[in-house]
């Protein structure tokens, strides 16, 4: 699994290609798994497989919302801190249907890839201030998303095996 630094060195197209594969990879991983298995947390704190899928769906919306803000502003917007666990609790991920969540993620991801396709070179350098990571450009976000996908696919595989 490439690190963030390794992804950053990859051509933009390769990183975008990585994003286009994720929905299928998720579908392959959850195929044939019962709702009970998809809903099983490996331990009290770690997410079940379906929570990982829901997280990717909602994170995708979060990413594109921020991208629109970055493009619309003359200065770098300040982003809020991460709240993934709170979202999992509040949006009741464990009650979701994993297949529906995956379909929604697939659609959001297609929109993200289409959005990246519309960017002109100067726009890739526009950015935002992340509370933990500091300034991130849109190009940096593409890197982050590629790594984020890998990270959560790995987490999902572990969850299906009952590992935290």
């Amino acid at each position, binding site marked *: 699994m490439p690190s963030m630094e390794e992804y950053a060195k990859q051509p933009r197209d390769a990183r975008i290609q990585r994003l286009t594969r994720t929905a299928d990879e998720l579908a392959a991983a959850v195929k044939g798994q019962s709702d009970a298995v998809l809903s099983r947390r490996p331990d009290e704190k770690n997410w079940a497989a379906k929570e990982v899928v829901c997280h990717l769906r909602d994170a995708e919306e979060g990413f594109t919302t921020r991208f629109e803000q970055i493009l619309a502003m003359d200065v770098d*917007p300040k982003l809020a801190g991460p709240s993934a666990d709170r979202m999992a609790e509040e949006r*009741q991920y464990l*009650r979701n249907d994993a297949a529906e969540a995956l379909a*929604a993620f697939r659609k959001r991801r297609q929109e993200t890839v289409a959005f990246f396709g519309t960017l002109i070179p100067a726009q890739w350098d526009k950015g935002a201030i992340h509370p933990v990571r500091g300034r991130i450009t849109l190009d940096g976000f593409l890197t982050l998303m590629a790594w984020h996908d890998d990270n959560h696919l790995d987490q999902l595989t572990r969850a299906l095996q009952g590992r935290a």
Partner: protein
Amino acid sequence: MDFYEWVRHLSWVRHLTIHGMPFSYYARLNRAQQAVYRKSDEITEVRLAQPAVLHPAVAALGTALATEDRAQVQRATERLIRGLTETLGVPPVQVEVLAARPHAKWGELHGLYTVERGKTPKIQLWMRTAKQRRVVAFRTYLRTLLHEVGHHLDYALLRLRDSFHTEGFYKRESSLFHQLVAERRAPGSSVEAWFHRPPDERLAHIAATPDEVAHALEGRSARALARRPAAAAWAPVEVVCHLRDAEETFGERFAAILSMDEPVLPEVGPADRWAAERQYLRHDAATALAHFRRRRGESLETLVAASPVDWQRGGEHRTRGRLTIDMLVAIMAWHDDNHLEQLTRALEGRS
């Protein structure tokens, strides 16, 4: 120990507020007491000269209850009661907020007003239910508070020799309540109308919404809450989930406006897409309400802490133009009304 034994045990107790207990004092009163009763019954309201002055204290009480912290509720309760006694020009009263309500077969004790010769009168209020130890709903707590203040006013303001639970007494309690809490406007009230109402009134209004939603959902089955009145109209549970997620967005907008100089406020949703993607129909309504309540409490904390200058700070919204915090609070009040109305319709099977 039954109720009456308990009352005798607390021989110094003058007035008890036991919800659900019938009051049939009149026939058992002597003639002098009956005269006091009739006088109490004739007075149906207590007017506050400038109720809006007390609205921040009411909003702060809602916020304090949302934190579930007894010390904060104590301070907020003292502030409101002191405001009431000062506004009405009556002597102060001692205030004590306690945790779980005492209870027995007869019910739960919500509040208590006691007077002892030579001592400052005292109001005691319990902020948690007896068995489940849940924090009492804001409107219920405020009603109890005003009820106990009502006993104090009977002696200190109306100069009655006793304080009975008459119809007039309850009307006075209600008159105070309605001056302190902005009631829901008829559906169709516009954002502009809300914008022209004082900020304190808007805050009090939005502080009451979680309780109103709770009241609307009370006793409904999960099946009824997930029933859409028409194919394209939301079920009750979807309305609650929408309020919860919209509150998250309001919170993000406040944070963006307060941390940046005129930020762009990104478009979110649309709401129907959220309902479908986040699978609102599968959610548990009570849990969604609890999370909406928590988010609303956080919004109120932010808004109460923000200065008047902060309230005029704003951001640019693509379709609505510049939105200040002041305007967003008006939008919240309107949005609450709109969706409470939708919730009521959905519960009645109307789209």
